[in-house]
């Protein structure tokens, strides 16, 4: 009988695991250790409504304190796990407390990749990952303030859009030749570049930052081509790296994340991992992946919880993602890596279109711009490994679900 389950990490995966464990009838001791001083909360609004000041802080938590009291969850917030003793089944916190466990779940997430160029340590250089980061950035987003965003990915672009709405002068510097280049088709990149520019944001691609300058706080961003950009503050969104320190030190197998199987089990039988920190097999795509995705964290938190109770749940999900930029919603489902055919549905000029990716005749992924109908239909078709007719697929007058 499992008597103590310890969860390290208070994000989406950890919050879901707590919920599932009690729902599934786990009666034992349930402890959550999280290094932020907040109840487990949602991160997606951080670069959007919360940064804009349109969403009160009390709307961020998944659940409020009474839920944790009622379900007898020992929350150790603002506390850091320092070491896992896998052989001894116990975790030592930075303040010295030792917590024994029968099952341990790591939901430690990912951390922002940091700049390494000269000047990276200057004041005014921000990353956006948690509530404290938003607190530090928000004060600087005054009307007329010059914000330089490094990295034209989701975080960078969402932050740029929010800051622009607040009246800042915004420049986005992207190293690649187009925005969100790792995650979307070039037509989608172009669409969003146009949207941002039409709102007055300066977008510079093929631009590598080599140096930040300023006496104490950043004042100038210097690029490889010699161009410079004046800045009152900087937000860096150049990707994230999984938090594997604790796991690796405990001897768990790690490779681009904590290695887990389809049951969220690590290389130690008593330790599980879920969410952004873990590298897992995707059954649909037949490869190992590490995802930064709310749905993936939710689903793995649930799967891990069930398996910690010695029941057998399998993580088998088609991943999905979304991004809100100005009044546009980008919805992505599936993984497009290795596709052999790309089909555009609709006309970007109508502000609503989709890009379909096929591999070996099967629909593998879809990116929908302001088109929830295609996105929802694709979720089903991709999971079913549907083989759409290309001519029907390319015809936006034919519903996606009728293309098979």
């Amino acid at each position: 009988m499992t008597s103590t389950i310890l969860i390290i990490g208070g994000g989406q995966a950890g919050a879901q695991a707590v919920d599932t464990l009690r729902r599934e009838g786990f009666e034992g001791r349930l402890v959550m250790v999280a290094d932020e001083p907040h109840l487990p909360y949602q991160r997606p609004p951080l670069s959007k409504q919360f940064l804009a000041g349109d969403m009160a802080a009390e709307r961020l938590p998944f659940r409020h304190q009474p839920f944790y009291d009622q379900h007898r969850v020992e929350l150790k917030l603002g506390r850091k796990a320092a070491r896992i003793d896998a052989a001894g089944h116990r975790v030592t916190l930075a303040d010295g407390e030792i917590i024994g466990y029968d099952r341990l779940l790591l939901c430690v997430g990912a951390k922002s990749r940091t700049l390494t160029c000269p000047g990276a340590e200057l004041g005014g250089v921000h990353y956006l990952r948690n509530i404290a980061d938003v607190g530090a950035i928000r004060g600087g987003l005054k009307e007329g303030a010059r914000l330089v965003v490094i990295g034209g990915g989701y975080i960078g672009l969402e932050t740029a859009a929010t800051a622009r709405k607040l009246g800042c002068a915004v420049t986005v510097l992207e190293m690649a030749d187009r925005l969100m280049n790792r995650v979307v088709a070039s037509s989608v990149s172009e669409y969003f570049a146009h949207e941002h520019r039409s709102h007055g944001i300066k977008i510079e691609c093929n631009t590598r930052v080599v140096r930040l300058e300023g006496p104490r706080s950043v004042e100038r961003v210097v690029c490889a081509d010699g161009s410079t950009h004046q800045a009152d503050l900087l937000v860096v969104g150049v990707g994230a790296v999984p938090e594997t320190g604790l796991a690796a030190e405990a001897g768990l197998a790690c490779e681009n994340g904590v290695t887990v199987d389809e049951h969220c089990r690590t290389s130690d039988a008593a330790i599980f991992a879920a969410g952004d920190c873990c590298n897992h097999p995707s059954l649909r795509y037949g490869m190992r992946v590490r995802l930064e995705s709310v749905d993936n964290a939710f689903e793995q938190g649930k799967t891990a919880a069930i398996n910690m109770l010695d029941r057998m749940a399998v993580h088998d999900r088609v991943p999905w993602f979304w991004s809100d930029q100005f009044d546009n919603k980008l919805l992505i489902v599936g993984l497009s890596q290795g596709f052999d055919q790309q089909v555009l549905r609709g006309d970007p000029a109508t502000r609503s279109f989709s890009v379909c990716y096929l591999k070996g005749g099967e629909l593998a992924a879809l990116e929908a711009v302001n088109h929830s109908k295609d996105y929802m239909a694709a979720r089903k078709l991709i999971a079913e490994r549907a083989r759409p007719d290309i001519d029907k697929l390319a015809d936006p007058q034919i519903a996606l679900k009728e293309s098979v």
Partner: protein
Amino acid sequence: MPRIAFIGAAGVRREIDAPVGITLMEAARQHGIDGIVARCGGACACATCHVYVAPAWMAKLGPAEDMEQGMLESAWEPRPNSRLSCQIQISKALDGLEVTVPERQA
């Protein structure tokens, strides 16, 4: 606070007091209403906070926007009175609102 009734898939009725200024989904989640999953947290990106609105209330809520409508088409067993609860803002005018939670979410 407006009082809102959730009728579970099994027919059990639960009434909650929902604070003005948040969404129906958030109010349901705060009160632990079963069956409102809300994976995306209210971004209109997942269709897992689907509810059936008591027909008399449909007009008062106004029509769903295109994005929500597109989501609802692929929700689990959509009906003409389907809505995503994350797109319904709680206001004083919703005192007495009654919604039914579907048997499953998408």
